[in-house]
Every structure is written in C-alpha cells, then in structure tokens.
C-alpha cells in the first residue's frame, strides 16, 4: 500500500505503485500511473494521461499533465511521459501533448527542473538536462542530453537546445542552439545573445578528452567567428578532412537548423509526429498514437 497522507483526492482508477509516497492535499486524476519510489510532496496535482517512472521527487505546488495552453488543442487523450530519478521543483507546470504536435510531452531521466519552470505541450527533454528556476519552454521544443538552461530563460516554439550546451540566464532563445556551446548575452538590455565559446563544464560532463575539446573549439571558431553564410562555412569545414564524431554531430545539427524556418529545424514538423518520437517513445505508445491519427 502506497504511503498516502489522509487528505488527498486520488482517483480509484489511478495506478500508483505501493512504494510511492503521496503528500498532503495532492490531487491525482484517473489516467495517471506513478512508478516505484516516486515521492510527491504536498499539494501536487497530476492530471491527464500522465505516466511517471520510478524514484522521482516532485515538489509542492507542481501541476503535471495539465491541458496545453494551445488554442488548437481539442481535448484529446494526449500523454505526458516522465522517466526516472527526476527532480521537479516547486510550482512547476508540465502540460500534456497536443493532437497536432505528436500527442506526447516527454521528459527523460535524471532531469532537474527548477522552481516555477513551465514545460509546454509536445516538448522532449532528454536525459540529464538541467533547467533553472522559471525557465519557460514553449511548445514543440527539444532539449537534448545534458543541456543546461539557466534561470528565467524563455525558449521559442520549435527551437532545439543541443546536447551539453548552456543557455545563460534571462536569455531569449529564438533559434536552435548547437551542442557544446555557451549562449548568452553580456547585457540583456542592449546586447543580442549569441554563441560565446565552448561550454567547458558540458565537455567535462560528456566525458570528452583534450583532443575532442580542441577539435570542437576549432570547429566552433570556424563556424561562428565570422559572418559568412553558415552553409559555406559548413562546406569549408567538411573539406578540411575527416571530422571527429562530435564535430560531425555539430555540423549535422547546424545543417538541420538551416532546413527549418527562422533557424529552427523542428518548424518543418508542424502538424506531424516529430522525429524524436521514434527515438524516445516506447513502441506500443507510438503504435497507439499512430492509430489515433
């Protein structure tokens, strides 16, 4: 029997593992599944078709699985998937997906969401990402593995944050941020945010060696230090010879960003299931979603 405090309103249809801890004044809806060892602090609301994995900690006042703030949402049974060992701060809101955006909002494992974060519909956050307080992710965003987004940053719809990249505090993100870069503004009242070198802590977190770091540094200076067209710079970099896997990944990311509108690769997947669905979602859920479409 799950350790449930007396004053809770839990739907009898909710599937809660016996080893869960549910704090006071929590409200849990009928379509919710919560895995082993997950702890809900007091006043947590979990609604919609929300599937939460094991050993997560969810702090006071969070609302998971709420309806999307998208005027195109028509009330479908869309999903929110949360992996294992995530730490979700106070007053965090995470919405379910929308019918036209791929049906699922996905959080991987080992993610930290700061207080009052908002993760909107159809976002995919990969393992190990860290979001500071009051980070707002608008809809359809991908945050790749190990990325760091600092406090009060707002990310535009359909943008991607590359793996192990860092976005500074209070930075408006309007286009894709490549992997392993630092992106911030020195003075956010009059200075446009831009890519400013390598995110060294990200390099360490990814476990890259000195050689990989040096090659990434060279590639970044080739791609972002002058104003010529990105396509030309990518071709020049490719012509220099064989690239390391991380530089290859960086080039692929930049090339993909050129395919979308306004530097946002995912813009081209409007009204369809995004490519990340195959990568992250379990096969049976993917089949269900395809059946509903």
């Amino acid at each position, binding site marked *: 029997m799950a350790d449930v405090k007396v*004053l809770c*309103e839990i739907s009898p249809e909710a599937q809660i593992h016996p080893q869960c801890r549910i704090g006071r*004044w929590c*409200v849990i809806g009928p379509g919710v599944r919560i895995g082993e060892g997950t702890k809900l602090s007091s*006043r947590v*609301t979990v609604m919609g078709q929300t599937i939460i994995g094991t050993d997560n900690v969810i702090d006071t*006042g969070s*609302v998971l699985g*709420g*309806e999307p*703030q998208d*005027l195109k949402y028509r009330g479908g049974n869309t999903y929110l998937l949360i992996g294992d060992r995530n730490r979700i701060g106070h*007053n965090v*809101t995470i919405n379910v997906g929308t019918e036209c955006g791929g049906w699922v909002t996905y959080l991987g494992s080992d993610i930290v969401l700061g207080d*009052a974060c*908002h993760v909107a519909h159809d976002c995919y956050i990969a393992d190990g990402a860290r979001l500071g307080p*009051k980070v*707002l992710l*608008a809809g359809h965003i991908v945050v790749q593995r190990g990325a760091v987004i600092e406090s*009060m940053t*707002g990310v*535009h719809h359909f943008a991607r944050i590359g793996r192990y990249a860092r976005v500074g505090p*209070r930075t*408006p993100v309007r286009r894709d941020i490549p992997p392993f870069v630092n992106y911030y503004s020195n003075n*956010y*009242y009059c200075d446009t945010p831009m890519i400013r070198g390598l995110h060294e802590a990200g390099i360490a977190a990814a476990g890259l060696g000195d050689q990989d770091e040096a090659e990434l540094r060279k590639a970044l200076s080739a791609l972002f230090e002058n104003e010529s067209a990105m396509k030309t710079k990518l071709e020049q970099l490719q012509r220099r010879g064989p690239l390391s896997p991380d530089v290859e990944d960086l080039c692929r990311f930049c090339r993909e960003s050129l395919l979308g509108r306004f530097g946002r690769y995912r813009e081209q997947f409007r009204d369809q299931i995004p490519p990340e669905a195959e990568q992250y979602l379990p096969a049976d859920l993917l089949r269900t979603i395809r059946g509903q479409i």
Partner: protein
Amino acid sequence: MPRISPHAVVTCPENLADDVVVGAFSYIGPKVYIGPGTRVDNNVVLIGRVSIGKENHIYPFAVIGSEDESQTGQIVIGDRNMIREHTVVLPGQANGSAETYIGNDNLLMTGCLISSDAKISDNIVLGNYSHVGDRAFIQSHVWASAFTGISPDVTVGRYSFTSGYAGVDRNAPPYAMLLGFPFQVRGVNTENLKRCGFKEKTIADLKEAFRAIFDGADRSVADEALVEWGRRSDLDEHLRYLVDFLAGRTGGGCGCGCDDRPGKKGC
C-alpha cells in the same frame, strides 16, 4: 446543484450556478458569485468580492481576490476565460476605479499577475509570467508573450503583439509589433490581423501609415506625419483609430478607467 468536492470549502454554495464544478482543496469566499458552466479546479482560492461569468475554467493554484481588508474593490470576470495555474488577480482599490475587470474569451497563461484596477478586454492572450500593472488597460485581441511587463496606468492598443521580455512602459499603439525593453514599434502585427479577418488592403494601408508615422528617433512617432495623416478624410475605421490613439483622442491610459467597453464612459 453545483458539484463541489467534499474537500473544498465553499462558504455560500447558493452563490454558485447549478453546473459549477469546484475541485478539491479550493476555497470560495462568501461574496463570490459564479455563473453556469464554470469549472474551478483544485487548490484555487476565490476570495473577496468576485463575480465570474459563465463557462470559465480556472486551473489549479490560481488566486483571484485578496483577503486584505484594505482592498475593498471587486473583481469582474466575463465569460469563456481560461485562467491558468498560479495566476493571481488582485481586486480593485478604493482610490482607483475599485474594479479589476477581465472580459471574455481571454487566456491568461501560467503565473500571470493582474494587478488592482487593471482592465483586460476580450480575446486576449497573456503569456506565461506576464505582469499587468495597476490601472493598466489592455484593449481587445492583444497577444502578450512570456515575461511581458506592463507598467501601471498604460494602455496597450488593440490587436498589438508584444515579444517575450517586452517592457510596456508607456502607451503602446494599436495594431503594432512591440519588441524590447522599453519597447520599440517594429511594424504591423500582420499575422494577428490576418487571423482576425482583416482585409489585405487594410493591412497594406496600416503598413504604409506605420512607415510614415513611426519615423522618428528610435521609431518613435513623427509628429508632422501624424498631423498629416490626421487631416486625411479617406481613412477607414482602423486607420482612423490608429491616428486618434496616437494623437491621444481615444480613451485609456490615464488611469481613470475610460475605455471602449460598452456602457463605459470616457474621462
């Protein structure tokens, strides 16, 4: 009978229409009136003099009203609004118009703050963590992106759009794209106008007017151009409104609650 969770506290259930739904752990005070079809989720606090219309949806942790005895004004909310999680609406104050007003068909996203005596017209979207200052007036069909800060006593003209982190520290013109802090006018909000069914010709005329009028330093209003456009007799309804707004001939922005809502008087 309204459907009230056994864990909710509703002081006067007779003030609620028949099909109102109230979620668990919500508190609804004695002077709160709620119209039919409105849904109040869990952990919502409605307190003070609050009147809510029909078919609204108030999401968890929204706080509408205040326990503060000094805030004696009321809150009036129209129909079909969505008030999202952690949004706070403060009541009017005795030294203002004593009424905070939210019209119809609005979407107030997560964490918005609507301060005392603010007025929000119809069909407005306020992005996450937007802040509407005391006595501010937002005209209809405005879209404000996340983290927009609207200062006290300003008017945001109708059909405008503010970018993320925008600061509206003075009256913002109608039909405009407003970017930055403090905001600059960056052209006509064409996408919103198209969605709202404006004719191509009206949009083209507005663009021409914007190019001529917002020609001063930092794209401020060029007074001569404004006077010249004001003299023209061939302006349609929207262009006339734009020119009148910029010349200060429409209501709003003075903090006394004069606005274009039906039944309300200008100052």
